[in-house]
């Protein structure tokens, strides 16, 4: 019986998929990242701060590359850099939409400069090209098991921030004056969202890479917002799309080692981003069909 199941599933799941420890880590980490990105990203898209999310993921590259140079996990580099950048962005005026874009752009420029320097040092000093590839495109199959609890904790902090700030975040995304008049500490709430965003981006960066982490953060919520008119459902749909895309990406990447002609293996991030895009296009088609 089990032989039949194996031969049947073998067509979809490459040999050894379910028994490979790196795959287990990848599935767990991917799952956490998809849920955190789905929840945080829904508020990021509602607040119109996608650009801040994208900037954080680029800025985080500097931290990831620095961590690589220091020989510690890029996750810590991404997180430290992103949290710091979020703080700076808030301080130099992220409240007004225009000031927000300027502040984001200025911090982004500085971060990319650092990233270029660290990546350069990482690829020349340590005589390996691993730094650039790992930092920019993710390393979900090479994550050590020891990092999983850290990822869990960072994810839990991000989710807790959003859970606490849920209603004030929605209210202040409609009108900061209205929220202020109701006694909401708008700046503090905005900072809380940015911190959650910094954590989500960092988690996403270790999974599918700094360059593409925004795709997982913005894509699923953007698709979900087209499909549902309730905030709660948007979060659920966005997490579901993120999970399917991430796990699907891990599976496809694993299977791709068996694909002809090269048997070389394709990067996880490529599949994740492609699936996210497919969902976004599908959501658009469904919206059109409904109208």
């Amino acid at each position, binding site marked *: 019986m089990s032989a039949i199941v194996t031969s049947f599933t073998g067509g979809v799941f490459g040999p050894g998929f379910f028994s490979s420890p790196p795959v287990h880590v990848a599935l767990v980490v991917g799952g956490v990242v998809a849920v955190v990105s789905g929840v945080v990203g829904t508020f990021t898209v509602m607040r*119109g701060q996608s650009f801040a999310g994208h900037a954080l993921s680029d800025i985080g590259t500097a931290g990831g590359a620095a961590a690589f140079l220091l020989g510690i996990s890029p996750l810590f580099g991404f997180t430290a850099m992103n949290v710091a950048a979020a703080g700076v962005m808030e301080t130099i005026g992220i409240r007004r939409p225009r000031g927000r874009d300027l502040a984001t752009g200025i911090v982004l420029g500085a971060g990319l400069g650092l990233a270029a320097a660290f990546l350069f040092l990482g690829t020349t000093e340590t005589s390996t090209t691993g730094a650039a590839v790992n930092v920019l495109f993710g390393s979900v199959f090479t994550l050590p098991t020891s990092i999983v609890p850290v990822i869990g904790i960072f994810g839990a902090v991000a989710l807790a921030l959003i859970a606490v700030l849920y209603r*004030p975040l929605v209210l202040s995304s409609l009108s900061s004056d209205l929220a202020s*008049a109701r*006694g909401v500490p708008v700046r503090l709430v905005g900072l809380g969202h940015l911190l959650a965003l910094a954590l989500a981006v960092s988690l996403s960066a270790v999974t599918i890479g700094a360059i593409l982490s925004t795709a997982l953060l913005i894509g699923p919520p*953007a698709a979900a*917002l087209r499909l*549902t008119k*309730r905030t709660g*459902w948007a979060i659920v749909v966005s997490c579901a799309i993120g999970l399917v895309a991430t796990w699907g990406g891990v599976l496809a990447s694993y299977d791709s080692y068996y694909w002809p002609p090269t048997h070389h293996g394709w990067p996880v991030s490529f599949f994740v981003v492609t699936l996210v895009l497919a969902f976004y296009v599908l959501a658009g088609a469904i919206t059109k069909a409904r109208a």
Partner: protein
Amino acid sequence: MAVPRAGSTLSQAGTDAGRAEVLTVRGLSVSLGGREVLHQVSFSMAPGEVTGLIGSNGAGKTTLLRAILGLVTPTSGEVLIAGRPRSRRNPLVGYVPQRLTLDPDIPLRARDLVGLGLDGHRFGAPWPSAARRASIDQALAGVDATHLAGARVGKLSGGEQQRIMIAQALISRPRLLLLDEPLANLDIRNEGEVVALLARIAATEHVAVLISAHDMNPLLGFMDRVVYIAAGRATSGTAEEVVQTETLSALYGHRVDVVHVNGRVLVVAGREDSHAHCDGGP
């Protein structure tokens, strides 16, 4: 610059002894970035009254509303809500902000937006309850928007969104309702419907309603009082008292003419003043 302050006498005439005041603004001055935006503004509002806050763009209407809400700190003067100094998150004050841009994709139904008026400032996610649902339904019925309850707010028309925002502001049962340019971007039919709705709410709920507008015409016939604001100075009284050549000329500090055309009011620069100035025009 010697500008006669017609407002001070008129507004004092308005504050009759024994008139229960929901809002008292006394000698309010506000400076923003070193520039005085409001100068010695005084007026008051009683329950059930509709007051038009009239003035051209940049005259200081939004700043006055923000001062009443406690969002800007006055340099002098005071704002009393029901006789007490105002505090942040005053449940007695409902607010509909200016030009809300609701993205079509925003995942909120009309009833969710109204619910935010009830508990949007609280931490955590909203939990459904029969009581919450009932008060949302009641608030929606109060603005004739029961049929819109399940619709996505971003897909509603400007007039419909304005109704939902009014329900959002009224659900906490305020005594004072502030609306910043609620008629901007509405067509004539919707203008009339929203104004009639606000007048009805003022009468039936005994709420004092303050409506800011750059054009007073849609409000004519509905306003119990007018606060006319120009270059940071204000004068108040009934529409007949305020909207006349002498009062407004004194407020502007130069000659303006109040012209009645087909039941509409135009405020135009006077003959002796060469530069064109027009307020409240169609």
